[in-house]
């Protein structure tokens, strides 16, 4: 686990130098918000409508920005054969995987926090709920655990830029379905009792995806 954190710290250092991932994800997420405000311009005047649209808008931003991030999650390792060096390191593939997941979750949470702030400003709608934070974290864990695995998987494929979103989205449905439903319930004023079922499904899938992905990860990076 300590070794996994080393991997995450390494990625943070690279990101702190280049900042290409964070910047592009943030801008992309912001642009999607703008597109939505144009698309739903007639609906955004009342806060009741925002409560209905908000969950969908936010999660689409998270998913699109996250997908953009995943396409780069392993790109830095394939350059100059860095992945070979990483495999020589005295650590299990599970550590590499977990390190990447920790890094991706952190980056995504930063992007998501800023997106939510921008959303509150642009749509004049405040969400201050600890439940919302829990749902977003739960969704992000599931999202990153599948995303990192597939990001490594597509590195050996011809059309990897096209294939990643196509592979990712169907697998994410079990995570997105409860996350969006729970967010939408919170926006409509739901309390913990109303979203317990969703939270249970969400975290069960987080654990399942993390466990399965850590086991199969070594087969993805083996050649």
């Amino acid at each position, binding site marked *: 686990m300590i070794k996994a954190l080393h991997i995450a710290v390494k990625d943070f250092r690279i990101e702190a130098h280049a900042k290409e991932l964070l910047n592009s994800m943030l801008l992309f997420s912001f642009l999607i918000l703008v597109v939505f405000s144009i698309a739903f311009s007639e609906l955004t005047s009342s806060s009741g409508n925002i409560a209905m649209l908000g969950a969908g808008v936010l999660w689409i931003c998270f998913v699109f920005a996250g997908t953009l991030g995943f396409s780069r999650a392993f790109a830095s390792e394939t350059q100059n054969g860095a992945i070979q060096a990483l495999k020589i390191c005295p650590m299990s593939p599970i550590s590499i995987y977990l390190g990447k997941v920790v890094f991706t979750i952190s980056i995504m949470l930063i992007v998501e926090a800023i997106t939510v702030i921008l959303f509150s400003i642009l749509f004049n709608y405040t969400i201050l709920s600890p439940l919302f934070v829990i749902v977003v974290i739960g969704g992000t864990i599931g999202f990153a655990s599948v995303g990192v*695995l597939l990001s490594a998987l597509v590195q050996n494929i011809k059309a990897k830029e096209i294939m990643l979103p196509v592979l990712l989205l*169907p697998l994410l*449905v079990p995570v997105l379905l409860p996350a969006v439903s729970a967010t939408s319930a919170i926006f409509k004023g739901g309390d913990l009792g109303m979203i317990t079922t969703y939270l249970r499904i969400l975290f069960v899938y987080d654990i399942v995806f993390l466990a399965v*992905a850590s086991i199969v990860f070594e087969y*993805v990076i083996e050649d």
Partner: protein
Amino acid sequence: MNYGKYERVTSLLSGILMTAAVYSVFFVLPVMKDDSGNALDTSFNIFYFHLPIAIISYIAFTVVFIANVQYLRTREISWDILARSSAEIGLIFAFLVLASGSVWAKHIWGWYWVWEPRLTTSLVLFLVYAVYLLLRNSIDAVESRARLSSVFGIVGFVSVPLSFFSIRLWRSAHPLMFGDSLYGQSGGGLEGTTLQTVLLINVAAFISLYIALLIYKLGNEYLLENIEELKNF
């Protein structure tokens, strides 16, 4: 590998069972009556196709999953051939589940499609395996194609239990036939020996159809492998 004999036996068997199944659904089933004795809508009869098709798609994808795990463990190409053969058949059945369900839904609910959890997860199941086959097509190298698609198949398989249990987790418009649901009533069940027999014949017919198709497909895939080998010779 030569499957000629099995091909003939299983296709004959599934042909006979299929004829019996179709005959029993259209001619043997009694007209269903409700409590006050009025004849019920016969559109329910599509259920005798809908359920076996759904069962077959689950079986086919379970076979894919087992073959994927076995491939990663043993690295024998025959497991990969089994996985891709079963995935293609499963995809067809997953589509037929959606199609037969939609026809039925149009009649009962008035819409071909409603966005409710059971239907959504069935659709996602279909999409996962459509993407699985797409992934297979986009990798050229035999070894990495088998390995990477196995990984995807294993992760994708976790969406199957979700599809299966979603009906118990969410309130759903989709009826539940067996077991207990959250909304009070236990499964509707089927009463009467005739109905159960008809259902059993249909399930048996579709299982034998799956086996027949799988054997045909496996035979074709092995021939394809042989051709590739001869080409590279």
